[in-house]
């Protein structure tokens, strides 16, 4: 492996990369056939194959102790990348080093030092209670008995799963199961943990609990966390940096703070008037408007509310607000940022030209 072991420099800070990826590419060969029985016969005699580029020439680094969001729409290549980083899939081309090891050649050594939680795949045995699965995992990870008991006590306490340890996994709720899954993945004290949509399908309270636990294990054990999620809440609350990939390529790689700052072109203004007005300001986008009756002291009257988006790169915000204030008696006005969710959606759905720009930034 040709990576040089050298500290990196980001925003003036020195950091030691724990994951290094360069020129990573994965291609799959897929059989294609025309529809119907005729197509099936043709495919049987003269099969046609299509090469699908799931990941194409991506590169990034992850710092030790960092919580990184690895995002992208469905089919963008996130899971394929994680699977290559963890040694499940062989890359078609490119270089990977995780903790100084090549996942393809040193899969077993690497497995001792990383943990994984795939929201859609369980590592606990369905018919047995978590304590039995934990015991078997201790055997798989060669954890000495005494160390195992201390570690289980610590994790069971941390994840508050005392009462779940003796219940067969099939009888646990999804939230309870995910807590047990994460605890199981931490048994062998991994230095890096890959979380692939850990909060998928969870209710808001359990989601928050899982996020708190992720933060806690990052702080307490300085575990590096590589997180993929479609939940913007996960990204906002947990991650300092986000990498977005789409169509198998990295389209954005920067801090979540910068992501908000650089891509917050739009401000959302919600305004409420005491009577109906007509908002005709050039360059703004009217998202919503509504007239409604209210009971006032002087009898019934009509009020008017609207929500508009202002592109601050094209419009002066103060100018727009002044114009809005001049249209009538304003009962309420709020100015808010565009939700991160919308920014990410815009990046996902952006045209290729924009992607190119984004990559450059």
């Amino acid at each position, binding site marked *: 492996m040709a990576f040089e072991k050298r500290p990196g420099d980001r925003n003036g800070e020195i950091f030691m990369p724990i994951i290094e990826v360069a020129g990573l590419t994965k291609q799959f060969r897929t059989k294609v056939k025309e529809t119907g029985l005729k197509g099936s016969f043709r495919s049987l005699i003269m099969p046609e194959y299509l090469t699908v580029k799931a990941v194409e020439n991506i590169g990034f680094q992850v710092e030790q102790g960092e919580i990184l969001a690895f995002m992208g729409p469905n089919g963008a290549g996130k899971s394929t990348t994680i699977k290559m980083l963890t040694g499940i899939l062989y890359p078609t081309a490119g270089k990977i080093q995780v903790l100084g090891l090549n996942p393809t050649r040193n899969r077993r050594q690497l497995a*001792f030092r990383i943990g994984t939680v795939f929201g859609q795949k369980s590592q606990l045995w369905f018919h047995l209670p978590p304590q039995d699965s934990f015991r*078997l995992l201790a055997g*798989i990870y060669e954890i000495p008995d005494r*160390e195992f008991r201390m570690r289980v006590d610590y994790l069971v306490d941390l994840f508050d799963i005392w009462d779940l340890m003796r219940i067969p996994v099939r009888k646990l709720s999804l939230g309870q199961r995910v807590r047990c899954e994460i605890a199981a993945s931490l048994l062998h004290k991994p230095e890096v943990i890959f979380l692939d949509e850990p909060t998928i399908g969870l209710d808001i309270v359990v989601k928050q609990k899982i996020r708190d636990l992720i933060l806690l294990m990052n702080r307490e054990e300085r575990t590096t966390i590589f997180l993929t999620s479609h939940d913007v809440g996960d990204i906002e609350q947990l991650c300092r940096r986000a990498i977005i990939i789409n169509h198998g390529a990295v389209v954005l790689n920067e801090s979540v703070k910068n992501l908000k700052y650089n891509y917050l072109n739009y401000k959302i203004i919600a305004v409420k008037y005491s009577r109906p007005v007509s908002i005709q300001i050039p360059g703004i986008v009217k998202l919503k408007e509504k007239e409604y009756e209210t009971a006032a002291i002087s009898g019934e009257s009509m009020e008017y509310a609207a929500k508009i988006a202002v592109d601050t790169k094209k419009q002066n915000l103060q100018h727009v607000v002044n114009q809005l204030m001049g249209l009538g008696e304003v009962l309420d006005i709020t100015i808010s940022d565009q939700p991160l969710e919308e920014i990410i959606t815009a990046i996902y759905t952006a045209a290729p030209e924009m992607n190119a720009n984004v990559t450059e930034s």
Partner: protein
Amino acid sequence: MSTAVNPNPKKPSVIVSHLRLLAAYFRFNLAAAMEYRGSFLLQVFGMALNNSAFIIFWAIVYSRINHIGEYGFREVMFIWALASAAFGFAHIIFGNIRQVSRIIMQGELDAYLLQPKDVCLNVLCSRTEVSAWGDLAYGLILFMAVWGFAPGEFLLFCTFTVFSGLLMGCIMFSGEILTFFLGNTTVISRLVTEFVISFTLYPESVFRGTVKWLIYSLIPAGFIVFVPLKIFKLFSWQALGLLILIDLGYVFGSYLLFRLGLRRYESGNLIVGKL
């Protein structure tokens, strides 16, 4: 910085750690099977009873004829007992043998690839086939019932059970891992299993020509039951050693095929759990 548990200073050798894993899976799977006690007992005794029905069939055949080639009733019972015990042994230890094709297709190998153990052994041993206990018990009891209990002979039969079990298992396994190369090969895998079972249950003399060649090559029923019978009747250490070498050669071959196939593994995104 957190410190990973491994590598630790007293780390056992790779072979010892894998043997320990095998033992751990064995205990674990037995416990999992006993979670459903009624089903466990029913499957074990049901399988033994099912196999016993064939003794009646062969008893009727041999009441009308004395021999089929060199095979009398006792010889046929020997190959039945060995085939059954070997099948049982293989499926107790390597309970996932006949699931491998499905596991590859549905991307379930991921879980095994993420663990610091040999994938091949890990995937094969992580499950047990409950009814296989019935096959093993049936094979051992049938052997003792027909050939009597002499410790030396019983020990030899047990040795055959282990190595024939390994051979039988690795042939079925090879049929399953064709999925890496050919896509959905469930039917071929089932066919291989059927062939292995069928060819080991009839006297060798019924197989001639191409089939005879087949039972000493691709579907090596000859090395699973026929050669052990010959060694059992006319023992020689050299013959036993050679047989074990041949068995291990097949095992090694199937392991290499698996490693080769693993490079072509494409994973998947099905929602799955460990049962």
